[in-house]
């Protein structure tokens, strides 16, 4: 009951004229960003973050969350109309969305995607509301030792569960952590890694600079290289009759949708997993449990519904650990976390006690954002068809200008703009060579917390390293982290062992 009262208060915040406008603006911007091939929620949030200085901090976070939400809806648009996923999270939507569009059912596919996103969003927001307060209460017991163990666990999930090359993942985590130590040592206050006394490095490397570089400039370079020929836009028309027919068909898929939502929510909470694997898993399960699995990939509407519920649910799921524990569940939420810290709203359990208005305002704004997104999405479909015809050079020019100016604005130093260009090129090359970028960004955001909690614990315990395992909660997290780290080693060892036996047969 107390939760409902808090949520009610939250609605009073999120339904204020300014915040309502912010949600509508954010969702619309997010829809367009998501719909553009190559740009997803993480790119949108990185590029738009410097522009959010224009509203107060709490509204800025609501705006960014709304963009995140809108981009999740928008990703399906180019998956269906172009056959190119608007963001990696919408890959699975192309499997059946594209064939449907080629059969002239683009409108139906888009309606299905929007409705499924709405269902996934709604179920996961309810789950979020239920879990948020208890998880924050649990996290109140955390000391620096638990914080360190939890951050370590977050990184090891990339090694144990992430699909990328293990060595490359470790390299990227270390690189992010080392970059986070640039500037002043947080315990002794001495400058370190300032590279020959360059004054620009004294204030450290902002997560925003890395994010704009990697997800703004780097993404543009990547898209330029891969988008050799202009793709064909399939026209889509939406009539009320189609809308009714679509809703009727989707109404029969509650099993798929609720499965996708729960799956997405829990997979989304893991830093290494997130919306892309969640949507692929949901697609796989829908196909396996279907009565007619052979129609999947040929334009089965269920193949659009399943991944779209999952990716929206996952985006909400990844907000949960970010807000309650201060550990982001995805690169986009890592940027939200960085933004919140920048504005003095430090995520974690204390936020629920100190800033309940903000926390519940944000949670309730997810409800309004979800509702706004489904309506705006369906209403603006003709506009998307038009916008997708926009030549890439125009989009590219706008993004580059926003990256330059947005990189300059927060610190007002040209040093940061140069760093953005360098990170952009480096990020592009690393991505080309299959180095995962999400752990890099996450590590830069979490680095200060990890080092601070590690050294605080050791100072408090007079240098006793065992302190991390002696505390039950932190010991449990460390054990899990070790497991995730050892798992790929065991797998690799078994594989070589099997290969050694094989020739003898």
């Amino acid at each position: 009951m107390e939760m409902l009262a808090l949520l009610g208060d939250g609605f009073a915040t999120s339904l204020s004229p300014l915040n309502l406008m912010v949600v509508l603006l954010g969702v619309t911007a997010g829809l367009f960003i998501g719909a553009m091939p190559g740009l997803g929620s993480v790119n949108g949030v990185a590029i738009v973050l410097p522009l959010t200085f224009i509203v107060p901090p709490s509204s800025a976070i609501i705006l960014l969350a709304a963009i995140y939400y809108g981009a999740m809806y928008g990703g399906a648009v180019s998956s269906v109309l172009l056959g190119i996923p608007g963001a990696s999270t919408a890959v699975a939507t192309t499997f059946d969305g594209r064939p449907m569009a080629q059969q002239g059912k683009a409108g139906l596919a888009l309606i299905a995607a929007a409705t499924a996103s709405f269902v996934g969003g709604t179920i996961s927001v309810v789950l979020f509301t239920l879990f948020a307060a208890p998880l924050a209460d649990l996290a109140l017991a955390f000391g620096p030792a638990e914080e360190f163990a939890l951050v370590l666990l977050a990184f090891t999930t990339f090694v144990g569960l992430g699909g990328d090359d293990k060595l490359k993942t470790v390299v990227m985590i270390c690189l992010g952590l080392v970059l986070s130590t640039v500037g002043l040592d947080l315990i002794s206050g001495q400058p370190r890694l300032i590279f020959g006394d360059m004054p620009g490095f004294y204030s450290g490397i902002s997560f925003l600079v890395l994010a704009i570089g990697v997800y703004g400039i780097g993404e543009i370079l990547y898209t330029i290289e891969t988008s050799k020929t202009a793709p064909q836009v399939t026209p889509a028309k939406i009539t009320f009759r189609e809308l009714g027919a679509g809703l009727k068909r989707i109404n029969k898929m509650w099993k798929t949708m609720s499965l996708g939502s729960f799956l997405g929510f829990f997979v989304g909470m893991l830093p290494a997993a997130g919306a892309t694997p969640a949507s692929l898993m949901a697609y796989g399960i829908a196909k396996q449990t279907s009565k007619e699995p052979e129609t999947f990939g040929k334009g089965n509407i269920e193949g659009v519904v399943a991944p779209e519920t999952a990716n929206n649910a996952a985006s909400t799921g990844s907000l949960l650990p970010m807000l309650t524990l201060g550990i982001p569940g995805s690169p986009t939420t890592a940027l939200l976390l960085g933004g919140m810290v920048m504005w003095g709203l430090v995520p974690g359990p204390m936020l629920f006690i100190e800033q309940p208005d903000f926390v519940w305002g944000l949670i309730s704004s997810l409800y309004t954002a979800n509702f706004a997104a489904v309506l705006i999405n369906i209403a603006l479909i003709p506009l998307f068809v038009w916008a997708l015809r926009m030549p890439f050079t125009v989009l590219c020019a706008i993004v580059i200008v926003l990256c330059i100016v947005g990189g300059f604005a927060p610190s007002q130093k040209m040093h940061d703009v140069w760093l953005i260009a360098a990170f952009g090129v480096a990020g592009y090359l690393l991505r080309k060579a299959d180095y995962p970028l999400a752990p890099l960004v996450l590590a830069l955001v979490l680095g200060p917390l990890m080092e601070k909690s590690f050294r605080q614990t050791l100072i408090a315990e007079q240098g006793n390293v065992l302190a991390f395992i002696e505390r039950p909660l932190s010991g449990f997290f460390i054990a899990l982290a070790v497991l995730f780290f050892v798992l790929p080693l065991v797998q690799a060892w078994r594989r070589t062992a099997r290969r050694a036996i094989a020739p003898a047969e």
Partner: protein
Amino acid sequence: MLVADRLIAGAIMALSAYFMWHATVLPIGWEGETGGPGGGAFPFWLSLIMLLCAGGILARSFAADAKASFFFDRTMLRPLLMVVASLVITIALIPIVGAYVAIVAFLFWYLRIYGGHGWTLTMSLTLATPVFLFFFFEATLKILLPKGITEPLFFPLYAMFF
């Protein structure tokens, strides 16, 4: 292209070594009196792990069955280099001729000369962008963009909005 993979792994190794060298300015060992590692320890040892892993990636690329992860479409090299070059030139010009001239020049070059778009599109975007930037950043947020030698031209505008 295994060469590119090796170059990138080698570059990461060099970068790690460079980080380690800089990290040794602060104590990298165990601090007896305070307990816990010194200020340079975190970057030093993490860079060492990075160096070793990148070394592993490099060594792996010499294995007989090594597969390249870096692929590149050579026909796209030119547009890519053009964008990088124009980005670098634009950033370099900002402190000298000011953001408004540099960005307008970039947009004009990129849309009209490089992109080959029509005059209507080029001019509307090229002219609308600085106006938006001025009102958004300078008039509303009070964040002054660098103006370089064009600074005096903005005095009347400052007088109007501040």
